[in-house]
């Protein structure tokens, strides 16, 4: 059913169709309205046998879901920014306990200075936690991604938390036409959660053991293996989704496959704009193409290497930093193509919600095509400023 809805609703409605057993969250801008919509559905008795809990903090929220997930419930939360970072200790733990909690992160920058606006520094800071990370382009994609997230996370070959990242404000607050899924379609795609092990008095098990040096490493290696297996499971699930929904969002990456000399890698809501600009440049005869990076963890190194094999330059539009090193996506891209002779341009844009205008994107790409800029990391859209060293 096509409807013009805001990003929050497209998330909340999709979550409801997935029939979670426990939803828990703490409000934080710009995520709040997602849980408000879910709370409303709960208040109106539309969530079935679901328990909806407003926690005392994001830390509490993630912790409640750890208990709920371990007891065998399908669980959901939404958060962002400081909230995600406050959850981080628990989310590392949830991943280590192999709990398939699904999280929507409404990407927002981190303090200080305080900023409620969008970039990707929050989710990137969770890079190494053992959480699957997917970035969506628009509100239809996030709507479609949620049933897929549950299906991948709960797959016995995976059993890891799954974080769907959507740009705060740019998507959460945007009105877009969204083809809302039907209960029948989601029911046929997503079976009820049937955990391989759970807390039950019928078969008492110990969760969250402590491990001595004789056993710890194997647990972590097993998580790494699960992340690796998740690639294949995601491929299967993405393909199945395309079949049942009629919407093909691509695999871990999505590109035209036509080949070009210069590639532009973008994630999230920036993708639409970059695609537009790239189309225009191609019309002007430039050999340039877009790669939409959908999955950040596990990182699709093989897919990227293949897609970039004929390229000479690659631009990564970054919306986060790794202070004292290169930005996180750039690092992974570089490592994926280390054996290829490709110059990498890491263009940092839009931190803290700074506007990324079409002209800036176009000019930045043209500069690279025309050889006017050296490979390496550059800020784009940065104003002149004076750094005071006291």
């Amino acid at each position: 059913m096509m409807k013009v809805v805001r990003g929050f609703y497209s998330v909340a409605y999709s979550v409801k169709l997935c029939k979670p057993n426990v939803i828990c969250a703490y409000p934080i801008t710009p995520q709040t309205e997602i849980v408000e919509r879910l709370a409303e559905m709960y208040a109106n008795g539309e969530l079935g046998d679901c328990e909806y809990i407003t926690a005392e903090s994001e830390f509490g929220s993630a912790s409640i879901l750890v208990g709920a997930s371990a007891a065998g419930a399908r669980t959901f939360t939404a958060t962002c920014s400081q909230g995600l970072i406050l959850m981080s200790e628990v989310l590392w733990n949830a991943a280590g306990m192999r709990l398939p909690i699904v999280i929507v992160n409404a990407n927002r920058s981190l303090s200080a200075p305080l900023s409620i606006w969008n970039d990707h520094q929050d989710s990137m800071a969770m890079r190494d936690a053992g959480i699957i990370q997917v970035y969506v382009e628009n509100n239809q994609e996030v709507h479609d991604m949620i049933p897929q997230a549950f299906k991948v996370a709960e797959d016995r070959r995976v059993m890891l938390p799954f974080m769907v990242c959507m740009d705060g404000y740019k998507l959460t607050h945007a009105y877009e036409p969204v083809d809302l899924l039907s209960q029948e379609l989601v029911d046929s795609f997503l079976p009820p959660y049937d955990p391989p092990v759970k807390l039950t008095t019928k078969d008492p098990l110990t969760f969250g053991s402590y491990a001595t040096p004789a056993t710890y490493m194997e647990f972590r290696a097993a998580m790494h293996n699960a992340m690796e297996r998740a690639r294949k499971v995601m491929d299967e699930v993405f393909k199945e989704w395309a079949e049942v929904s009629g919407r093909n969002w691509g695999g871990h990456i999505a590109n035209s496959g036509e080949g070009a000399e210069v590639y532009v890698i973008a994630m999230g809501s920036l993708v639409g704009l970059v695609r537009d600009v790239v189309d225009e440049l191609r019309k002007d005869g430039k050999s340039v193409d877009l790669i939409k990076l959908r999955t950040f963890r596990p990182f699709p190194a093989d897919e990227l290497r293949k897609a970039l094999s004929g390229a000479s330059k690659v631009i990564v539009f970054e919306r986060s930093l790794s202070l004292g090193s290169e930005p996180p996506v750039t690092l992974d891209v570089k490592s994926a193509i280390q054996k290829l002779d490709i110059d990498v341009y890491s263009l940092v844009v839009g931190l803290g919600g700074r506007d990324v205008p079409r002209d800036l994107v176009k000019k930045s790409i043209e500069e690279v095509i025309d050889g006017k800029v050296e490979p390496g990391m550059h800020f784009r859209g940065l104003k002149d400023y004076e750094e005071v060293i006291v």
Partner: protein
Amino acid sequence: MKYFGSGHGACPGCGLPIAVKNVLEAIGPCFVANSTGCLEIISSQYGKSAWGVPYIHSLFENAAAVAAGIEAALKALGRTDEGPVVVFAGDGATADIGIGPLSGMFDRGHDVLYICLDNEAYQNTGNQQSGLTPTGSNTTTCPAGKLMPGKPGPKKDMVAIALAHKVPYVATASVAYPKDIRRKAKRAMEFEGPKYIQIHSTCVTGWGIEGKLAIPIARLAVETGLYPLVEYENGKLVRVRKIKKRKPVEEYLKPQKRFRHLFKHPKGHEIIEEIQRIADENAARFGLDVE
């Protein structure tokens, strides 16, 4: 297998297994969430779990929230007949780092029995000060030195904090009185919503005592009035353990290394007086003395 089997690695004389066994015996099969601490370390090593009930250790500070999640899941999944949800958490996990999630669990009214195993310091890591460390106690982070004669300030009143949350059943207990622990755990289960029991639990290493003295010393804490055993139902004090001939606090302090400096330190006398004052106040407040 028993609910809490043999094979745990507690120090001989440790109060924790006494507390845990008696609670579990009283309430039967249940779900246990346990914060990081001695209990977790002595019982949950991978491949050597001492637990015969479904058990989860998550983090130091979130056992109350994890338990709330279990409770919510059981409700949502229609599995409330499987048994109650219980938290075992140490004093630091309860009164310090975990007080936020605990307050949230109380506030939302989850049907969870929360047991605070109060051994009055972070004992797992070698006796560091917590919010429940008593006045004057020597710990590694409030050591008795020239300037500081052990823990300054009083023990945090967690019972009052639980009562302020309108927790329907709130009690204190001691490992010296296992029958009382069992009765209180059983009684707690008759209340819906959160229940809080704080059990005074000996730590032989942290307190600096011999294992065989563990129970007599725990008993002295009660007999001096320093650890009053009280019971509140729906906010009303319904029962206290009366003391026949209340003993002076010195009797409790002297045999423990953690208080020994008080008998030498220039400010020691003053502090012992202060501790006696706390005991007297408890006696007056709860009517501990048999007239």
